[in-house]
């Protein structure tokens, strides 16, 4: 196979996953959230139970006027949604679905993923500052504090599993994974998942966009397609965090018939975790800013550090 065809197929596959998976998760959120609240959710768009609701939403967003506030820093304002979306695209590139099913296998996959995920804070600050709106700015500052804070437990928890596996490559970590890691690495998995939730600013960690006090935080001034990009970034974020948790802590493609059905196991675990993320959103109220920081610095970081010590001790003992 010529190099360019190989490259084209890989990029196309990543783009398809990048566009389809968030839609599936978004639709699942519509329906799951509705049924958890005793409603039925969208029923009309598309024939069967409103399956095309998000596509219809997309068409609606495209039709809307694209407004840039007069006092906004135009270039930065317009770039911010793309900066928010782009890191997740890069991350999806490195996530392995099956034993040999990965768009780009990297030896330092985990390092790249964590580094790239950190770009999110830049997008938040860009949109917050460039909007020339005090609510946006407040939301952006909150977002920055939250994202910088939760970066630490996220990295520490990921470091624990990398230490256990002895590699930074994502497929390598899945290869090294053993079922008993579910117990041994459970605290790290929990910390990683919760910190990941905060990284994608999902409820109950949606303090930066607290709509009852900050209108919509750093997204307040965005309209039309740019707002849709932010929303898409949120749903891609769900997929990415669920996928990373799957790959790092839940054994990725490991399961019965993993030779043939490995990718199915990975997808299944990703969707199960996405369901949990949606479930959290329905069940829990938003954390207050001080509770948010307290949870990060007084609970997650110490737990992650203790896990690191435990991992090191077990590795040394084995």
């Amino acid at each position: 196979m010529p190099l360019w065809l190989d490259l084209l197929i890989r990029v196309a596959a990543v783009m398809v996953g990048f566009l389809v998976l968030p839609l599936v998760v978004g639709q699942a959120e519509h329906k799951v959230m509705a049924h958890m609240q005793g409603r039925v959710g969208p029923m009309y768009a598309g024939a069967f139970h409103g399956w095309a609701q998000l596509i219809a939403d997309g068409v609606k967003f495209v039709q809307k006027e694209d407004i840039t506030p007069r006092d906004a820093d135009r270039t930065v304002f317009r770039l911010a949604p793309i900066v928010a979306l782009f890191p997740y695209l890069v991350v999806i590139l490195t996530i392995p679905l099956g034993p040999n099913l990965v768009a780009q296998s990297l030896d330092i996959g985990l390092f790249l993923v964590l580094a790239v995920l950190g770009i999110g804070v830049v997008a938040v600050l860009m949109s917050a500052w460039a909007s020339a709106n005090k609510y946006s700015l407040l939301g952006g500052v909150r977002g920055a504090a939250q994202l910088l804070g939760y970066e630490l437990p996220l990295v520490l928890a990921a470091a624990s599993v990398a230490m256990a596996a002895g590699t930074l490559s994502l497929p390598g970590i899945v290869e090294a994974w053993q079922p008993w890691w579910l117990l041994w690495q459970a605290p790290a998995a929990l910390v990683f998942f919760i910190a990941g939730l905060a990284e994608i600013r999902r409820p109950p960690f949606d303090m930066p966009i607290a709509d009852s006090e900050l209108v919509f935080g750093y997204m307040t001034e965005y309209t039309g397609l740019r707002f849709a990009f932010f929303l898409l970034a949120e749903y891609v974020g769900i997929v990415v965090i669920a996928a990373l948790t799957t790959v790092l802590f839940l054994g990725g493609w490991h399961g019965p018939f993993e030779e043939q059905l490995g990718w199915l196991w990975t997808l299944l675990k990703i969707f199960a975790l996405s369901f949990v993320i949606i479930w959290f959103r329905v069940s829990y109220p938003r954390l207050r800013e001080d509770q948010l920081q307290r949870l990060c610095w007084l609970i997650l970081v110490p737990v992650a550090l203790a896990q690191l010590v435990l991992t090191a001790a077990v590795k040394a003992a084995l």
Partner: protein
Amino acid sequence: MSENGDRIAPGKGLLDGLAVTFKTMTRRSTTQQYPDVEPDLPPRSRGVIALLEENCTVCMLCARECPDWCIYIDSHKEEVVVPGAARARQRNVLDKFDIDFSLCMYCGICIEVCPFDALHWTPEFEYAETDVLSLLHDKDRLGEWMRTVPPPPAHDVLGEPSKEEATAARKAAGPGAATAAKTARPASVRATPSRPAQEVEPAPEPEQ
């Protein structure tokens, strides 16, 4: 919980919250598919107001009592010559009877005060318009709503009889008969009392 000093396991509240939402998800949703399925409205629902034109005597009570002044009435008088009568009678003829539903607040005072049952509630509520002027319903349109007026609810069999019934029964019994209105009630109704049995029972002893 914590105010009472009860210690609960940490995180129990979080798990309870998850359990509640999951349980709700497994149950059937309570959504009513309104535009597809007609809602099942109680008989006394207040929708639009219907006019039975034949009953209207243009007494103007409704228009005067309306707090919003949203009822507009015009009429003229006509002579009715009854053969054999000493002189011709006069009768009010309704020319215009409009209710402006953009002003109406559905208090129902017009329906209450109407002495001749010319105004009725109907449960029809789907008369929204894209133009606010179209919410002014004239007497023909108000008359069309009469089709949707449900029959009046049956009298409560255990309730007091109407004044007419009581008077008729008293007259039938002749002078000096018992005046208690309850004697006018048909025997078949009184044969199955539900309350008196309780009244016979001795009052329960107060506890303590």
